[in-house]
C-alpha cells in the first residue's frame, strides 16, 4: 500500500509523504507505548502502591503529549499531501488525456474517464486517510505485542497465535464475499441496461407491442437481481460472522490462558489483570482492520484505473520535427485495423495540394479512419501517411494540427456562445474575423434565430442547435482557422432543405484554395470533386472524376444510380396489396 503511495504521489511530494508517514507512525507508537506503560502502572496501582503508580504516570503523560503533537502534524501533512496529490493528479490526467491518440476515446472509455475525474479521483485521494487508519491499526498492536512478549511470553503467545488465524479468516471471508458480490453486481448491471431499454422502448412497447408496455426481459432481470441480492446477503453472512467469531475466540483464549496462569502459577493477580487489559486492547484494532481493508481495496481500484489512463501511451513525438511543404496528402500502402481486425489493407491515395478529393464507399469501409490517420489520431500499422510531403510521425503534432482543420459528423460544441465556439478555430481572431467566418458559413442565419445572436449560448455539447446548424458552426471554425488542409465528414442524416442549402454554400466557401478530403455519403454533393476515390475492401477500388467513374460503370456508377433512384422516390400506398389480414 505504502509502496503504491510512493509510486503515485509523484517525486515532488516524496518529502511530504515521508513527513506524513513519520508523524503517523510516531502517533501510533505513542499510543502503543501508552498501553505498554499501563502494565507497570496498573500492577502498582492494583498492588496498592499508589506512589509507584504515580511515578509511572509521568512517562505515560509524555507519551500522550507526543501523541498529541504527532496527531496534529499528521493532520496537517495529510491535508497537504491529499491536496498536492489531488492537484498533481488532475494536472497529469488532464495533460495526458489531451495527448492520447483519439482512437482511445470510444463511448465506454469516455464515460469511464469522466467518472475518473469525479468520484474516482476523490476515492483515490482517500487513500491518505485510510493509510493513516491502517498504520494505526497495525503499528499500535505491534507495539503492544512487543510489550507483551517482554512482559509475559505466555500471554503473548496466546494473543499472537490468534493473529494469523484472524487474518486467514478475514481473507477467506473476503473471497466468499467477492464471489457473491460479483454475481450480484452483474445482475444489477443487467437490470440497469434492461431498465434503460424499457424506458426508451415505451412508445414501441405500447403502440406496437401487445404487452401494455411491460417488458418480460426487464421483469426477469429484476427477479434475477433480487435472487442474487438475497444470495449475496446469505453468502456474506458467514464471512462477516466468522471475522467476529475469530476475534471473540482470541479474546476467549486470552481470558482462559490468563485465568489458568492466575490460578495456577507464580504471577500476581495484579500483574495478571494488567496483562489481560493489554491483551484485550491488542485485539481491538482487528475490527477496524477489516473495514480499512475494504476501503483500501476500493481506493486501490480507483488508483489502478487512474494509473491505466496515465500509462496509456501517447503518440510518440518526433525529436527533430520536420517542417511541412505544400499541403498535399499522400497515403502509401497504408495498413490499419482496430483491435487487430484489419480495416485498411494497403491503401494508396494521392491528394494533390489545392484539390478536392471525395471518399465514398459502403459504411464501415474505413472512410472516417482515413481522415483520422491523416490527422494522426492513430498511427498506421504499416505504410506511411504524408502531409505536406513529411511523414506525419516526423511532424510536431502541433504543426500538423495547425495545418489541418477538422469538420466531423458529430460536431461537439462547447457550452459557450456561438462566437466562442467559432473562435476556437483561431483563439486570437478579431471579432470582425469571427463575424466574417460566421457569415461565410451561414451561421449568421442561425444567429438571427437566437435572441442573443452570435452571443447566444449553444448549451452542453451544442444541444440547443440542430445537427445542420452545429455543422455550420464547425465549418465556420474551420474557415476561421484558415488551415491549408480540411478534412470533412459530411453529415449522413437528412438535413432539412434550409440547412442543406446553407451547408452546401458554406462548403463551397471552404473549398476555395484549400486541399479538401471529403467523406461523402450523398454522391450528389461531390460530383464536382477533382477526384473521387471509392473505398472498398480496405483499398481504393476506383479512382477518377464523376464522369470517368460513371463511364467506367463500376461500383460508383451503381451507387450513383441507386441514390438517384432513391431521390426520385415517391411514397404511395398503391402497392396493390389489400389492407388487412
Amino acid at each position, binding site marked *: 500500500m505504502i509502496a503504491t503511495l510512493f509510486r503515485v504521489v509523484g*517525486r515532488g511530494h516524496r518529502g511530504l509523504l515521508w513527513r506524513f508517514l513519520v508523524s503517523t507512525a510516531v502517533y501510533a507508537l505513542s499510543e502503543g507505548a501508552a498501553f505498554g506503560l499501563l502494565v507497570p*502502572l496498573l500492577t502498582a496501582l492494583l498492588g496498592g502502591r499508589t506512589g509507584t503508580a504515580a511515578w509511572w504516570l509521568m512517562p505515560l503523560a509524555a507519551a500522550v503529549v507526543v501523541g498529541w503533537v504527532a496527531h496534529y502534524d499528521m493532520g496537517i501533512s495529510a491535508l497537504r499531501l491529499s491536496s498536492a496529490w489531488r492537484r498533481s493528479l488532475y494536472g497529469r490526467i488532464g495533460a*495526458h488525456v*489531451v495527448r492520447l491518440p483519439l482512437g482511445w476515446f470510444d463511448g465506454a472509455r469516455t464515460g469511464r474517464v469522466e467518472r475518473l475525474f469525479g468520484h474516482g479521483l476523490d476515492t483515490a485521494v482517500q487513500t491518505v486517510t485510510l493509510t493513516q487508519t491502517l498504520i494505526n491499526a497495525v503499528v499500535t498492536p505491534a507495539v503492544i505485542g512487543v510489550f507483551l512478549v517482554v512482559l509475559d511470553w505466555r500471554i503473548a503467545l496466546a494473543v499472537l497465535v490468534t493473529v494469523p488465524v484472524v487474518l486467514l479468516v478475514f481473507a477467506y471471508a473476503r473471497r466468499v464475499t467477492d464471489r457473491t458480490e460479483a454475481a450480484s453486481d452483474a445482475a444489477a448491471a443487467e437490470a440497469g441496461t434492461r431498465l434503460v431499454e424499457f424506458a426508451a422502448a415505451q412508445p414501441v412497447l405500447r403502440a406496437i407491442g401487445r404487452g401494455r408496455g411491460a417488458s418480460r426481459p426487464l421483469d426477469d432481470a*429484476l427477479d434475477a437481481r433480487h435472487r442474487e441480492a438475497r444470495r449475496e446477503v446469505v453468502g456474506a453472512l458467514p464471512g462477516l460472522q466468522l471475522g467476529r467469531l475469530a476475534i471473540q475466540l482470541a479474546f476467549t483464549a486470552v481470558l482462559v490462558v490468563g485465568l489458568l496462569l492466575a490460578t495456577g502459577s507464580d504471577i500476581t493477580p495484579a500483574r495478571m489483570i494488567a496483562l489481560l487489559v493489554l491483551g484485550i486492547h491488542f485485539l481491538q484494532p482487528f475490527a477496524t482492520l477489516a473495514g480499512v481493508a475494504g476501503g483500501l481495496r476500493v481506493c486501490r481500484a480507483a488508483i489502478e484505473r487512474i494509473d491505466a489512463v496515465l500509462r496509456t501511451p501517447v503518440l510518440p513525438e518526433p525529436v527533430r520535427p520536420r517542417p511541412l511543404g505544400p499541403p498535399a496528402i499522400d497515403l502509401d500502402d497504408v495498413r490499419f485495423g482496430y483491435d487487430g481486425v484489419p480495416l485498411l489493407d494497403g491503401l494508396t491515395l494521392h491528394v494533390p495540394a489545392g484539390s478536392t478529393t471525395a471518399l465514398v464507399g459502403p459504411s464501415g469501409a474505413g472512410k472516417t479512419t482515413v481522415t483520422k490517420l491523416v490527422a494522426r489520431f492513430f498511427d498506421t500499422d504499416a505504410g506511411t501517411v504524408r502531409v505536406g510531403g513529411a511523414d506525419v510521425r*516526423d511532424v510536431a503534432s502541433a504543426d500538423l494540427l495547425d495545418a489541418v482543420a477538422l469538420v466531423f459528423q458529430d460536431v461537439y460544441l462547447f457550452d459557450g456562445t456561438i462566437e466562442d465556439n467559432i473562435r476556437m478555430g483561431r483563439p486570437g481572431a478579431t471579432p470582425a474575423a469571427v463575424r466574417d467566418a460566421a457569415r461565410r458559413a451561414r451561421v449568421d442565419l442561425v444567429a438571427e434565430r437566437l435572441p442573443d445572436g452570435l452571443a447566444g449560448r449553444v448549451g452542453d455539447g451544442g444541444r440547443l442547435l440542430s445537427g445542420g446548424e452545429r455543422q455550420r458552426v464547425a465549418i465556420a471554425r474551420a474557415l476561421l482557422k484558415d488551415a491549408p488542409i480540411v478534412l470533412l465528414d459530411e453529415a449522413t442524416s437528412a438535413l432539412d*432543405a434550409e440547412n442543406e442549402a446553407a451547408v452546401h454554400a458554406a462548403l463551397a466557401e471552404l473549398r476555395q484554395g484549400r486541399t479538401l478530403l471529403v467523406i461523402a455519403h450523398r454522391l450528389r454533393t461531390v460530383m464536382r470533386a477533382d477526384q473521387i476515390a471509392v473505398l472498398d475492401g480496405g483499398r481504393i477500388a476506383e479512382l477518377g472524376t464523376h464522369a470517368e467513374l460513371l463511364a467506367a460503370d463500376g461500383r460508383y456508377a451503381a451507387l450513383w444510380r441507386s441514390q438517384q433512384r432513391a431521390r426520385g422516390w415517391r411514397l*404511395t*400506398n398503391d402497392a396493390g396489396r389489400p389492407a388487412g*389480414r
Partner: protein
Amino acid sequence: MTATAAEDLAELRRPVRGRVTVAAGAQVLATALGVVPLVAVVELGRRLLGGQTSGLWAIAWLAVGAFAARLVLYTLAGGISHLADADLARTLRRRLVRALAELPLGWFAGGVAARVKTTVEDDVAALHHAVAHAPGDMGAAIAGPVVAGAYLLYVDWRLALLTGAAIGAAQATRMRMVRRSAEPAGRIAAARAELSASAIELVRGIAVVKAFGGTRAAERPDATDERPDAPPERPDAPPERADAPPERADAAAERVGAAPARFAAAAERYADVNDEAQRIFIRQRSLARATVAPATILLLVTGAGTWFAALGWTRPLDVVAFLLLGLGLFEQITPIYTARDQRRRARDAAHRISELLREPPEATAAHPVALPAPAGRALPLELDDVRFGYAGGHEVLHGISAELAPGTVTALVGPSGAGKSTLGLLLARFSDPTGGAIRLGGVDVRDVDRAELYRHIGFLFQDVVLLRQSVRDNIALADPDAGDARVEEVAAAAAIDARIRDLPRGYATVLGEEAELSGGEAQRVSIARTLLADTPILVLDEATAFADPESEAAVQDALAALAGGRTLLVIAHRLPTIAHADQILVLDEGRVAERGRHDDLLAAGGLYARLWHAQQEAAA
C-alpha cells in the same frame, strides 16, 4: 400538499418495517451484550485480587456465553435486515416499473432514460443504508454508550463523570464542526459540479481540443538542444522519437495548468475549496482527537484513578473497568455522524422515488367504447378542431381539422416548428388534445381502449428502437403469437430477410449482443415489425426513408411494402416524396394554412409553392 423526504422514506419503508425493527432490536441487544465479557474481566479481577478462587470459571463461561449469544444476534440482525432490504428493493422496483408503464407516453419524450435508471436503480439502492443499517446502527450507537456508561457510573461516579466530561467536550467540538461544515459544503458541491461539467466537456470535445489548441502547452517538447547533428530522416529509427522526455512530462504534470484551461481552472478551484474546508477544521479536529484519544482517556482515568485511590475515594480495580469500557466510548457514538450523508442521500432518493410514483398515469377510458369495425378493416380517421398546448405553455396547435378516408394518403408538410410532429404524437396518444377531438370511425380515441386503438393505427417512429432480444422477438413484438413463417414473410417484405439469415444465428441472433445492425438495417427490422402489426392506418415519418444514405433504396422498398393498401398519414420534410398524396395539409404555426393536391397547391402559389421552390433550389 407535498410529503417531506422523511415522510416519503418512512412510507416506502413501511412494507418491511416489522422486520427492520426486529433486526434493529437484535443488534441493540447484541451491542448491550458486548459489555458483558468486559464486565466479566473486571469481576474476575475483583475475585482474584480478593484471593477468591471459586466461581472464576463460571464468570469466564458467562463471558463466552455472552459472546455466543451476541454472535447469533448479530447474524440474525444482519440477515433479517439485509434480506428485508433486498425484498423491499424488488417490491419498489416492480412498483416503479408498473408506474412507468402507465405514464403518458409524452413523459418519455426527450431522454428520460437516465432519470429512470437513476430512480429505479440507484435511488432504490441508496435506500439500502436506511433500511438495512440505519435503525440498528443508530440504536447501537446509543445503546452501547448508555449501557457502558450506566455500568461505569455504578462502578465509580466520579471517574465516570470525569470520563463523560472529556467525551462531552470532544462531542461539543464535533457538533460545532458539523454545523460549520454545512457552509463550505455548498461551495464544494458547486466546484464539483463545474469540475465534472468541464471534465465531460474535455473528454467529449477531445477532437476539438486536439485540433484547436489546448494541447500545445503540454505537447511541444522543446527539443532543439537534443542531438542537433542527428540525420533528419529515417522515420523508423526508434531513437529518433521518444515519449515526451519523462522529466519534462513530470514537470508539466505538476501544474494543473498543462490541462486545457476550463478544466484546469475547475480542478484548481475544486482542490482549493476542498483544502479550505479541511483547513478550517484541522485545529478543532486535532483538539477533539487529543481530548478523546485512547491514550488521553487512559492517562485521565489512570491519573485520576491513582489520585482518587490515594484519597481512598476509588477502589484501584474500578480503574480497570474504565480502561476496558471507557476508552472506546467516543468511537461508539461516531456512526451517528459518519452516516449523516448516507441518511440524507436515502431521504433524497426516497423523495425522488415517491415523486415518480406520484406522477399521474395516462388517461384511460373508464367505459371503453368498441370501435364499429374489427381490427382488420379500415375506419375513417377524423381530426376535428384539434388543439394542443403543453401544460403551462402556449398552444402549439390551434384547431386542425381533416378527414383521412380509408385507403388515402395524407401528407403533413410545413416549416419546422409548424406542429407536424406534435400532431403525429397526438395520434399515437403520447398526449391527448387539449381541445377538439380525434375520432376513429366516429368514436373519440380517448374513449377507445388503447390496445384496440393500436390494433387500428400503427406507427413507424423515426427513432428506431430495437430491444436486446432475438431478431425474431423484435419483429414478433407486434404479435407474439405469429409463427416463424409469418415473421420471415414480413422480414422478406421489409427487404431484411437475407441480412437476418446472414447473422451468426439467423433469426435467433440477439441484437446488441451477438450482432449490431446498421441504421438502415435496424430501420427495416422496425418496418417488418410494423408490417406484422398490420394496422389498416399507419402514421409514419418520411425522414425515415432518407436517414441512412448507404441503404436508402432498400429502406424505401421496405416502406413501399409497408404502405401498400393502408390509410397513410405521412409527416413529410422533402416535398417530392409526397407529391402523389391524395391530400396535403400545409401547416404553419399550428394552423392548416393550405390543403389540396400537389398540382393545385403549386398552382395556388402559396406557402406550399414557396417551400417547393426553395427545396428545388437547394437541390440544384
